[in-house]
């Protein structure tokens, strides 16, 4: 009453309605600052206190109001300063306590009202502790004083019947204050002692705890810094006095046995070592183990008990003390899987402790090993269902987790990285040997688990510390599993393991490749009539493995077996697509140097994922015959108008290598493909900027100084001269190549469509033939051929009709008749020497004025179309030409073979703006053709590119034939070969490729017999527009010829291989 009057004297507060209060509490309850913001300008604390003290205020909101005050005053951001907030709060508390004081004549309050009052005390203390900082300064202490007084007053009535709960609450409040501000109650200690002695109701505990806290703080007081000291303070029990020990702890202890375990923990840490006799320790360990077996306990406690056992520094570290408990850690049938997993951890821990170095030294090998194996196997039984349950079952996860724990337990992860010597220790361990044979058997017997085994190994492979363990396991699988596998469709289940073996270059690939060979042979032979899809899938999977091998191994290592496998697949496998893909891989293996090959293969790679199905489509552009189909369907012109190459292609090109440039990782790799770099700060942001101008500008500007010998200087001189004749196609017209074609059309179908009956030419007679006027043929291509200008044919007569059954003479007589055939030249300006297709469109007028238009069959461009002779600088006289070519060949040969001297050099191109750099690549190709045939073919197709012929026998033959002329004839066959011992090198720069052409191991020594057998050598220099070169050095033998190839445009190797095959084998 009194209080309310005093409040009324203050300036009137805005009051909130019940609804507003509800909204306010709701907003604050949500924790969203935005929603609270609108209330913050109000004097919230005063409003809340005012409302709380009102008797007519909704009673169900009062507890919430207290929580609100608590939150408000403890918020680090929005709380008012304590000097403003605490006094009104304490005033309110005092008035509340006074109004319900037992000395007042009121009857004792209802339990609910008493509860509310206790909660208010709590709120006040909570606000004080959270808003004032310890240690208290004078002003804060003064602030607190009324609160302490009020609480002591409440506590000061021991054994009073009705308000015992309030007294307990007051004690708890005081204890919290004492904890927050140590020694706050030091002066009252004596008084508290008396109270604690006197209290006999069940709340005596609160008095004792309060007293204990105060006493402890007094003990610790003298200038002790806060922190660790206080943390390991005197146990409550010890401070609480002898006569009070019996009942006080119950509430805190939560549960007796848990308390004991907790005590074990606390004492193990804080007390001197001998506080626990060994017996006690064993008892506690037993008890914890027992608790893990208590089915009525919540699972989390059972798990926690195991953790305590394993984590205790005394039990876990001195692991021996756990060993006797092993039987207690055996999982029970009805233990939840989580618990089984944790118990298996404990068994793993014990097994690991038996496998330590000391234990190994101790001897008793057999017994020790047997025990480890027994623990391991017994443990596995508990989750044995994983063997036949599906691989995604929880049992499987738990089982493999156990394998991991057992394995890794022997050498756990450590912070330092000195794992290596430790690994040997692990590989020697009983567990490792048990596990590896177990995995082999598991994989053999339960093919469904192979994938899981793979994932298990991956886990180790990804770990820095245990990578070599994973590798070792893979090696074991390679050694022991592979030979035992049976051929057949089941083998597919093992592909996850094969993939990992293929990926890992620590494992020799021969075993796997042989297995795959047998597999392919067996399914090629045994397949049934309806197994098409399955064959495809099997073949594709095998190719997937091959692809991985290509990616992860050095070509030299896999060359022989892999090429055999691929060769077999592309010849004998029943599925067409698989055969095709195998051919592509084989070609890649043979033609593309290893390092680049791996780069190429990596491009289409998904970041992760198990399915390694090869996607040649992303890498190879297979020109589709789509156009012609469309044309045929619409009865298109291509069925009777024909544009054909005059010289048919040797190779029916069906694919071309497409090199995505933008995402090349390695810039230098990328640039040599493109190869031209700008010299000046050329403003050449021109037409073909996209992708083709990825230049090494920096390397040019900051060219390092080098010492050059005369030889190198000479080579450079030759090269500079040569390159200065090559036009830079970006700034001037490029080198053109011409593809001569003929255009003709068939009269009958043409008239049928265009001529109609009104044709001026009668169809019966030879002279009445249809004609096309003002024909324009335009070309386009997806290949990089630059702009191809259209070709015009003013007039063309149709081919005379021919009886279908006419016998056409071999030398077709119409050929020469130019009125029936128009010759059409397609002129390309290749940006890159590559095969491709040229799409052809035609437009013409028919006699009746109708416009004929449509697409014709595409024209295939082969690599051989790109072959040109190198251009000759203007200052070279005619008789110097052979010598010039000879020098140029050698300069280029040197430059493409060894980039040490020329690699960083750039060669300005004609036009003065661009420059080229040479990045050479070498390759070899063995041609198994006889001498005559070889010479004949060279003379027929390559004669104009031959620069030199070396070696008497060969020179004699070729000279006699007289086809090859104007070349340098040399006699000393050895001279050139001898200084080129390194010729048989590498697809990769770092490792010698041991090409096994003549011998399994094909070493450098084996070269001499090669040259002995050689009859002579052709030296061939081919220029590939726009600025590349292809160099052959054919070491001609009687029955075989070794072609050493060098080029500064490695992608062309892919086509050259095919070209050479077509050239000499057909």
């Amino acid at each position, binding site marked *: 009453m009194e209080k309310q009057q005093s409040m009324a004297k203050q300036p009137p507060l805005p009051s909130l309605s019940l609804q507003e209060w509800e909204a306010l509490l709701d907003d604050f309850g949500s924790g969203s600052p935005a929603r609270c913001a609108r209330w913050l300008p109000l004097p919230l604390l005063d409003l809340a206190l005012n409302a709380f003290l009102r008797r007519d205020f909704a009673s169900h909101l009062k507890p919430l109001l207290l929580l609100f005050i608590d939150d408000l005053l403890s918020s680090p951001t929005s709380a008012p300063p304590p000097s403003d907030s605490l006094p009104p709060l304490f005033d309110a508390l005092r008035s509340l306590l006074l109004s319900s004081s037992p000395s007042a004549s009121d009857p004792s309050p209802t339990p609910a009202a008493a509860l509310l009052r206790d909660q208010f005390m709590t709120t006040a203390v909570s606000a004080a502790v959270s808003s004032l900082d310890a240690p208290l300064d004078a002003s804060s202490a003064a602030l607190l004083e009324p609160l302490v007084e009020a609480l002591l007053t409440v506590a000061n009535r021991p054994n009073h019947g009705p308000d015992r709960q309030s007294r307990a609450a007051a004690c708890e409040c005081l204890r919290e204050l004492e904890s927050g501000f140590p020694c706050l109650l030091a002066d009252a200690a004596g008084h508290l002692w008396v109270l604690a002695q006197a209290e006999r109701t069940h709340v005596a505990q609160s008095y004792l705890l309060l007293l204990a806290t105060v006493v402890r703080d007094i003990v610790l007081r003298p200038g002790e810094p*806060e922190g660790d000291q206080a943390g390991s303070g005197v146990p409550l029990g010890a401070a609480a006095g002898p006569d009070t020990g019996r009942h006080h702890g119950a509430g805190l202890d939560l549960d*007796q046995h848990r308390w004991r375990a907790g005590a074990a923990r606390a004492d193990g840490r804080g007390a001197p070592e001998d506080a626990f006799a060994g017996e006690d320790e064993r008892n506690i360990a037993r008890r914890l183990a027992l608790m893990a077996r208590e089915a009525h306990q919540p699972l989390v406690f059972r798990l926690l008990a195991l953790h305590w*056992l394993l*984590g205790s520094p005394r039990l876990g570290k001195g692991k021996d003390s756990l060993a006797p408990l092993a039987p207690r850690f055996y999982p029970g049938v009805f233990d939840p*899987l989580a618990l089984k997993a944790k118990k298996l951890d404990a068994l793993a821990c014990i097994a690991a402790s038996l496998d330590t170095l000391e234990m190994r030294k101790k001897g008793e090998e057999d017994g020790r090993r047997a025990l480890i194996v027994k623990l391991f196997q017994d443990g596995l039984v508990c989750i044995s269902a994983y063997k036949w349950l*599906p691989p995604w079952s929880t049992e499987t996860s738990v089982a493999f987790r156990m394998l991991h724990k057992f394995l890794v337990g022997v050498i756990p992860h450590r912070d330092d990285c000195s794992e290596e010597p430790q690994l040997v220790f692990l590989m020697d361990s009983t567990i490792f040997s048990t596990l590896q044979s177990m995995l082999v058997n598991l994989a053999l017997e339960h093919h469904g688990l192979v994938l899981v085994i793979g994932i298990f190994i991956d886990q180790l492979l990804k770990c820095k510390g245990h990578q070599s363990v994973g590798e070792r396991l893979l090696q074991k699988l390679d050694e022991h599993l592979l030979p035992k596998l049976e051929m057949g469709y089941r083998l597919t289940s093992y592909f996850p393991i094969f993939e990992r073996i293929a990926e890992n270059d620590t494992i020799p690939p021969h075993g796997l490749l042989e297995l795959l060979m047998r597999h392919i042979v067996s399914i090629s032979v045994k397949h049934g009539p309806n197994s098409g899809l399955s064959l495809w899938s099997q073949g594709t999977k095998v190719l997937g493995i091959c692809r991985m091998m290509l990616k992860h191994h050095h070509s030299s290592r896999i060359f022989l077996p892999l090429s055999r496998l691929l060769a077999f697949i592309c010849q004998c496998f029943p599925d067409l697509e698989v055969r095709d893909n195998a051919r592509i891989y084989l070609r890649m293996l043979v033609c593309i140097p290893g390092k680049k090959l791996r780069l190429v293969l990596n491009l289409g790679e998904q970041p992760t994922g198990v399915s390694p199905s090869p996607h040649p489509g992303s890498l190879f552009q297979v020109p589709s015959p789509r156009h012609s189909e469309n044309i045929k369907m619409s009865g298109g012109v291509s069925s009777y108008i024909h544009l054909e190459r005059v010289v048919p292609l040797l190779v029916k090109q069906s694919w071309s290598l497409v090199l995505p440039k933008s995402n090349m990782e390695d810039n230098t790799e990328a640039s040599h493909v493109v190869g031209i770099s700008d010299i000046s700060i050329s403003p050449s942001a021109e037409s073909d900027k996209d992708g083709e101008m990825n230049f090494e500008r920096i390397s040019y500007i900051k060219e390092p100084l080098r010492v050059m010998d005369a030889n190198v200087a000479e080579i450079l001189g030759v090269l500079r001269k040569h390159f200065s004749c090559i036009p830079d196609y970006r700034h001037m017209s490029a080198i053109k190549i011409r593809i001569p074609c003929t255009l003709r059309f068939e009269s009958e179908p043409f008239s049928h469509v265009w001529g109609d009956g009104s044709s001026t030419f009668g169809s019966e007679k030879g002279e009445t033939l249809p004609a096309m006027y003002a024909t324009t043929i335009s070309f386009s291509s997806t290949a990089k051929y630059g702009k191809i200008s259209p070709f015009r044919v003013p007039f063309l007569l149709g081919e005379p009709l021919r009886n279908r059954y006419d016998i056409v003479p071999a030398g077709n007589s119409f050929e020469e008749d130019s009125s029936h055939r128009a010759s059409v030249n397609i002129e390309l300006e290749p940006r890159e020497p590559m095969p491709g297709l040229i799409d052809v469109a035609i437009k013409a007028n028919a006699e009746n004025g109708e416009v004929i238009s449509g697409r014709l069959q595409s024209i295939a461009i082969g690599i051989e179309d790109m072959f040109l002779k190198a251009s000759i600088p203007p200052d070279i006289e005619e008789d110097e030409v052979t010598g010039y070519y000879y020098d140029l060949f050698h300069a280029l040969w040197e430059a493409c073979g060894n980039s040490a001297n020329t690699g960083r050099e750039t060669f300005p191109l004609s036009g003065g703006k661009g420059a080229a750099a040479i990045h050479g690549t070498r390759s070899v190709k063995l041609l198994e053709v006889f001498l005559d045939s070889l010479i004949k073919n060279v003379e027929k197709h390559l004669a104009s590119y031959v620069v030199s012929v070396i070696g008497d026998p060969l020179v004699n033959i070729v000279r006699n034939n007289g086809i090859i002329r104007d070349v340098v004839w040399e006699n000393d066959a050895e001279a050139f070969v001898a200084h080129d011992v390194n010729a048989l090198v590498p697809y990769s720069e770092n490792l010698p490729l041991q090409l096994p052409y003549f011998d399994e191991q094909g070493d450098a020594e084996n070269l001499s017999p090669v040259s002995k057998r050689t009859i002579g050598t052709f030296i061939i220099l081919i220029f590939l527009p726009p600025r590349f070169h292809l160099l052959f050095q054919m070491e001609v033998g009687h029955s075989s010829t070794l072609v050493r190839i060098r080029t500064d445009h490695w992608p062309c190797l892919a086509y050259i291989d095919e070209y050479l095959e077509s050239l000499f084998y057909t």
Partner: protein
Amino acid sequence: MPSSSPCSIRALWILSSQDNVAFSRRFPVVEKRWRLACARENERSESVSVQPLLPTDPELVSAFSERKRREGSAQGFGIRLAESTQGSDSWVDDPITRHIISLSIKREGSEEEFMLWPLVLHTKGSYYIIILPFVEPQQFKAYEKLCTRSDCGGSVGEEHSLSSLLYNLPCITGAIMVAHTVGDIITGDVVDPDVVISSSASVGGLLDSLTGSIGISARAKPVAASVAASSTSGASAVGAIAMDASKSTFRPIDKDALLTFLSSSMPFGTPLDLDFAHVSVIKANGFSSSDLPPAELKQPAWKPYLHKGKQRMLFMIHEMINAAMYDRDEIPDSISITGQVNCRADLEGLPDVSLPLSGLKNASMEIVSFHYCVQVSEHGDDKQALMFSPPLGNFVLMRYQALCGPDPPVKGFYQLSMVSEDEGAFLFKLQLMEGYRAPFSMDFCTVSMPFPRRRVLSFDGNPSTGTVSMTEHSLEWKIVTSGRGITGKSIEATFPGTIKFFPRTIQRGPSLPRSVSRNTVEEDTHSDAEQDTSNNTLNIEETLMEKMNKDLESVDLEEPFCWQAYNYAKVSFKIIGGTLSGMSIDPKAVSIYPALKAPVELSMQASSGEYILWNTLGKCPSTVSPKVY
């Protein structure tokens, strides 16, 4: 001041299954302590700072649902699988991370993110109770390091393992206790232990004894029996995919009760007394001037009220038997008994009761826990004497385990053989109560054959005794029915028959993500394996099994194994008049100080927990039982 008490709680949230915050509470005093500790820690170490932050309710909710999404369920994988991501709980690779979780909190309106750990997660009914206890910042950092390390998964022997971290965190235990109590309160599962005298209804709990003595009618008795309720339910989960929550129907939280409980039992965030019965009785009754304290002794904390009226002592021994019966030479049956002694002491004043136990060794008995009022005065291998000052009402005096009693009360075998994909022949041969003499009486005994993945079409066959009924997914054979129990005799029961199922349709429920995704496996095996089975000479049983297993769901880690993968029969029974372990109490040996005249009564019963007869002809899960304990 650093934590001098074993457990302080910074905050508590209760989330509904729809991820709304049903209740939340923060404890500013503890939070202040955390802020101080963080400041100290950040001063001490310059490397990684600890953030003294608490999430708002919406922040917590979104972090929790994010975790649920990432970890497959609210509890998470618990062990490291292929899907596990670095920095998440399952990366730590320990099943306890299903109960002690971390959350990554995104601050609303900013990119800032901070981690919260340890959060004790307890799922009860349709609610998630999440409790954040106070730990030292170094401990928090230690966990943060654990769940982000980049190796292949921890091993148990490591220096900085989760185990050694948990060992130093007593607050976890306290927080779990709080979580469980709160869970019981919000779902209304606060049940007193059963005390049954003879065969009459059980005696009520604390409130009843109070209200009874003042003459108020007792409240309705909760139905569930406590012993059965706390056991892991295996068969009950059969047929239903064990998902988090959603097990019990929705019921709104009694916020008032919860608030009262929290403010009385942990006013500042530090639990003082978690006995909800006490809190609610005191709230309902309060104390009057007539409640005088005892003249000389101090009243223990667990006994706020003293008994007045008729005096008596009741003991009840309740045992539960779990059995896996194999009927195979290579696998021994596994039988275990867990038991508890429930007690009620209506005694005036504050007497001490002494109870000697003997014959422990014979029964291979191990006592696992006592009520906190018990003091064990002497104990040896075979003998144990308990001294306790009993609280008011029913309480569990002690719990124990026994390995082997006499012969199990139901023996025999169950065989089921599939003759085709949809038809099977089965045979039961059982022996009941063999060797159990007179006071033992079997109240009921039922055998059920669950077929959670097949729909039963029909069955054929007559049991030698009892009746058989059929449900959609099971057959139930009532051998002994309640009211016609058998006493002092043994019976033999056989049941040969055949069962037919509807043709199988593949039905897939939501599956938990597992280390091996089903799709990868199926894609791989589908086309190729089909070819194979035709020319493979597996027997029909195995072929069927393989087919069945294709759409088998993986179970939760809380299950002992994938029940659905097996054929078995589950036996339920209740035996009164004795215990299976041989454990007993001699009423005459019970003594009370100061001496009181109070009759002591004892009752005993045993019931089945998981009592499984595995199909002798099929696969079955088993474990190795070590010889020595």
